[in-house]
């Protein structure tokens, strides 16, 4: 399969995931659109060197995250924190009961946007339902380090979406 065909096939399979990924790095809609295009460009170029050294999914996520992180580094955002240090937003809006779909998405994006690498990427990949092995392949973390982070992410989400409504 040629470069163009590989790219088309990857976008057919992972297009929506790439958009979710971009929205987890940028708040502003124009910047999201720009990052999506940048990721597509990097992905298209990357297929000139892809020869099945890892699964297509791993390759696509690696290229996409590396591109997004590079763009974030150029912007130099100093206010990013690790999972241990994240300040959780108050959940007053949720006090009356279950939160809506859009609100839940906004809350998740708000949390992810604050995280620095590689916690940001682990949380995104966890929400995309990748297993710990794949997350390790994409981020370069050991399986133990991924497992520790997933444990913290689960605890964070439980606080936000279970107990959060009653705080």
């Amino acid at each position, binding site marked *: 399969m040629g470069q*163009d065909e590989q*790219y*088309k096939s990857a*976008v057919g399979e992972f297009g*929506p995931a790439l*958009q*979710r990924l971009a929205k987890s790095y940028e708040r502003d*809609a124009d910047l*999201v*659109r720009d990052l*999506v*295009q940048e990721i*597509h*460009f*990097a992905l*298209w*170029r*990357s297929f000139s*060197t*892809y020869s099945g*050294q*890892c699964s297509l999914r791993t*390759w696509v996520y*690696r*290229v996409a*995250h*590396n*591109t997004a*992180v*590079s763009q974030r*580094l150029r912007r130099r955002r100093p206010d990013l924190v690790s999972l241990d240090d994240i300040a959780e937003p108050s959940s007053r809006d949720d006090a009356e009961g*279950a*939160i809506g*779909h*859009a609100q*839940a*998405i906004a809350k*998740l994006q708000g949390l992810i946007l604050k995280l620095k*690498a*590689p916690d940001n*990427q682990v949380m995104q990949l*966890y*929400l*995309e*339902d990748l297993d710990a092995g794949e997350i390790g*392949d*994409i*981020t*370069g*973390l*050991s399986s*133990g*380090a991924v497992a*520790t982070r997933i444990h913290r992410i*689960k605890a964070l*989400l439980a606080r936000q*979406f*279970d107990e959060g409504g009653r705080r």
Partner: protein
Amino acid sequence: MSEPDIKTRWQTQPMEDIAVSLFDLQARARSFRARVRARNVALILYSLANIAAGGALIWYGYFPSMRYPMLLMIAAHLFVLWQVAIRVSLRDQPAGLPGQALIDFLKGESERQRDALSAAWLWYIFPFMPAFLWELGIWANAILSHPDGAAKTGNIRLFALVVVAAILFWGAVWLFFARGAKRLKGQIDALDRLRGE
């Protein structure tokens, strides 16, 4: 809300339709190559302008005592042009390997930037120093041998001002490179620690 519910909500979030065609990508590739070319051309034009100016001064016999340091300055510009050709033009290719694991990619990028900062003064600043110091030496000699005392004092002040300004400028440039390299070393160490977790 349960864990699968959170994941489902995340994966089914509404999306804006952002279409990217192959035509768009090829246009972006052309624009990327044009930007790299423009940056390289700007660097080359700067050096060529300096070479032309120095060459003209030598050719028309201005400042005859400065002829040899000016020739050395031209040689320094040619050396920097050569370095630009072998170092900067290589970056037409992606800097890191795009399909590497994130930590390796970040480490590779940080090391590349650290190496560039650590070595920049060697190939971009140091080559001009011998000619610059030689010119200062000739100028100092001319001031000291000037017969007019009042003019000599004025020239010494100007000379001292130039020397102090040069020390401050090159010192600031060196400090900028050194601090950047130190910050990157910290990032590289942190990535190594992540690798070791």
